[in-house]
């Protein structure tokens, strides 16, 4: 059965209701640089996870679970991800 290797590119962002003091500070820094059109900055996290699974569906399911269990905290964060296929390994 062949195995697929995927790279999940995961974006964890603060929920809109959560104040982001870091983003606010960066926005103010940008405005001081002359970027007066900057309205808002929100800072999140970018996580790459490489995993090898039988199907894309399985990879997607596992990454969803990882995000729910550990990578994001649903109380304060949202997440989204993209899967990129890296290689196919044909195994026994």
């Amino acid at each position, binding site marked *: 059965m062949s195995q697929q290797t995927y790279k999940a590119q995961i974006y964890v962002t603060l929920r809109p*209701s*959560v*104040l982001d*003091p*870091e983003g606010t*500070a960066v926005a103010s820094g940008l405005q001081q640089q002359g970027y007066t059109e900057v309205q808002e900055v929100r800072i999140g996290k970018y996580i790459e996870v490489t995993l090898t699974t039988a199907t894309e569906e399985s990879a997607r399911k596992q990454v969803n679970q990882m995000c729910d269990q*550990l*990578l994001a*905290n649903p*109380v*304060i964060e949202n997440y989204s991800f993209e899967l990129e296929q890296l290689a196919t390994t044909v195994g026994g």
Partner: protein
Amino acid sequence: MNFGVVVFPGSNCDRDAAYVTQDLLGQPTRLIWHQETDISEIDVIILPGGFSYGDYLRCGAIAQFSPIMKAVQDHAQQGKFVLGICNGFQILTEVGLLPGALICNRDLHFICDRALVRVEHNHLSWTQNYSEKAVITLPIAHGEGRYFADPDTLTQLEHNGQILFRYCNAQGEMTSNPNGSLKHIAGITNERGNVLGMMPHPERASDDVLGKTDGLALFQGVLKAAVMV
């Protein structure tokens, strides 16, 4: 009464907590490595302050999956006492024993200071030795201590009397809020009242030699509860 203090990689207030329960209260105290799974003899389990797993990802996020945490959840389920201080509070919210989350302080700074805190009520063992609305001084030392929860959860916390400590000024008024916590929250309990999480450090304010002893009554309160049972 048996006290247990969990030691995660990166905990740094474990010995301070054990000093209070063992040396000041004179109670048997065990430092419990996070890989352990049996705490059945323990009456009060303390999750100490520090930087478990280097605060990687989010404070407390990785510690919540340490083997000991399953035992801590069972312990809480049985109605036994769980106290999470600072990083311990963060772990309790991550693992879901307490609602909400602790996020980056409003002004982004790590705050190391003494904070005035109001004891909201004394109906629980934790605070039975304080007078209601007493203003006490406890050290705080955190970068991610701003309490956050959705409006429904905050309403529930208020309604159920789960908010046990709030930041205040010397008169007990809600004007001072060092980290920007919603509702000035410094410490909350679960609905049952046996699980307490707080950002201020009562264990750092229990021995005269450190200048203030406002935190000692909290540990004595729990001890008194055990004697009464």
